[in-house]
């Protein structure tokens, strides 16, 4: 249904249709890809949202039932103690199960880490000697070692071991960051209250996990930093080094 004679006009119409929500299937997919990859297209979609927005003023307000607020209030609370990692679904995938590779790594680290399998089938792990595992000891200014991060580039898995229990903190989240040497902090997600966290990092993040990069924990609003950069104090940090 696309008009091949006027590609610009076709695209502008697509932006309008996308903003209006008329598209589905392949057309919608294409519009989303364009919106993600082409700033001019994204801007035209944004303009259409602004152009059409006053129409929403015609709709009558309807009070939602009180139960809706209760559901919202519960879902923005930080995780309860013991409820394990993450209510947020950051770029990383959380792996709650132990894997063969991580258990081997834990053994290699002198039994500091011992993992609890929880029913997630371990992925097949092929260690690659070219990319050695790395560790970072995260500590505060007093050099009390508290959190150990173990990174296996071959499997893109990061394991955090926390000593003791993190006290439930209903007003803040603890967010984990990687800061490449000379680079900006990138979020790895917020930390739950469990003693171990397993994450499989996306390729883009995994490439930052190089020797000399800093791993840090900051205090953030529930759900993590709203800006994508650390906004609260850093409570622990350490450098990645070869294990």
């Amino acid at each position, binding site marked *: 249904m696309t008009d091949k004679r006027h590609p610009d006009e076709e695209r502008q119409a697509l932006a309008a249709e996308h903003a209006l929500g008329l598209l589905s299937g392949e057309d919608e997919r294409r519009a989303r890809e364009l919106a993600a990859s082409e700033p001019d297209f994204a801007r035209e979609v944004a303009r259409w949202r602004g152009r059409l927005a006053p129409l929403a003023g015609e709709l009558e307000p309807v009070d939602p039932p009180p139960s*809706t607020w209760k*559901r919202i209030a519960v879902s923005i609370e930080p995780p309860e103690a013991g409820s394990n990692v993450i209510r947020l679904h950051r770029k990383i995938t959380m792996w709650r199960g132990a894997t063969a590779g991580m258990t081997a790594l834990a053994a290699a680290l002198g*039994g500091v880490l*011992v993992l609890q399998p929880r029913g997630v089938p371990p992925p097949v792990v092929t260690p690659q000697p070219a990319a050695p595992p790395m560790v970072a000891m995260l500590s505060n200014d007093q050099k*009390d070692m508290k959190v150990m991060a173990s990174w296996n580039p071959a499997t893109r898995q990061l394991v955090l071991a926390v*000593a003791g229990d993190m006290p439930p903190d209903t007003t803040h989240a603890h967010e984990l960051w990687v800061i490449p040497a000379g680079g900006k902090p990138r979020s790895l997600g917020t930390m739950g209250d469990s003693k171990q966290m397993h994450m499989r990092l996306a390729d883009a993040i995994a490439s930052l996990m190089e020797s000399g990069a800093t791993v840090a924990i900051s205090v953030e609003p529930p759900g993590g930093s709203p800006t994508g950069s650390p906004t609260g104090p850093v409570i622990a940090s350490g450098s990645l080094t070869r294990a």
Partner: protein
Amino acid sequence: MNNSVAIGAPSVGVLFAFWRGSGMEDRMNRATDPGPSDDLAALMRSVARGDSGAFRLVYDRTSAKMYGICLRLLGSEAEAQDVLQEVYVTVWRKAAQFDAAKASPITWLGVMARNRAIDRLRQRRGGGEQLDAAADIPDDGPLATAVIEQEQDSRRLAHCLDELEERTRTMIRAAFLDGASYPELAEREGVPLGTMKSWIRRGLLRLRGCLEQ
């Protein structure tokens, strides 16, 4: 394989005792102080700093409007409530991305509510159509699906809609207010899909021409 837990490091409690006692917590608390402002945009700034009291006020002042949008589009109270929940959880996490220079908080929320509700309609129609390839991920990255450039003046929009053929105007309004899709509109009017698309496309481009004058 050893399944027991053995941690060889000192208690993390010390770590948190460290930061609690260091004045950092006081600084955090001051930073989230909502301040006296009643203004919705100011409340959004407080929400962006993690102020849950401000978040409740934003909800109280805007949720009826958002629920009205969701209910109209979805026609189901249960689904409208689900979408409302998604919208406000996103607001809590993404309030920092709200740009008061471009649109009012009500408009920003309305765009989010409408987009989420229309995604639901699509899933319903398409038997669970998934668009995750480029779909907005609620918890990650900028909220691309709610970026707004300069909100239109409502009188100007009404005037320009009036300039369109009545049929086209009705179709565009049905798409916006009811979430009607191309096939639904074509069926409603008893015309082929291609005809409906060219009516609406022509109408939208004409509308833009009028608004930009």
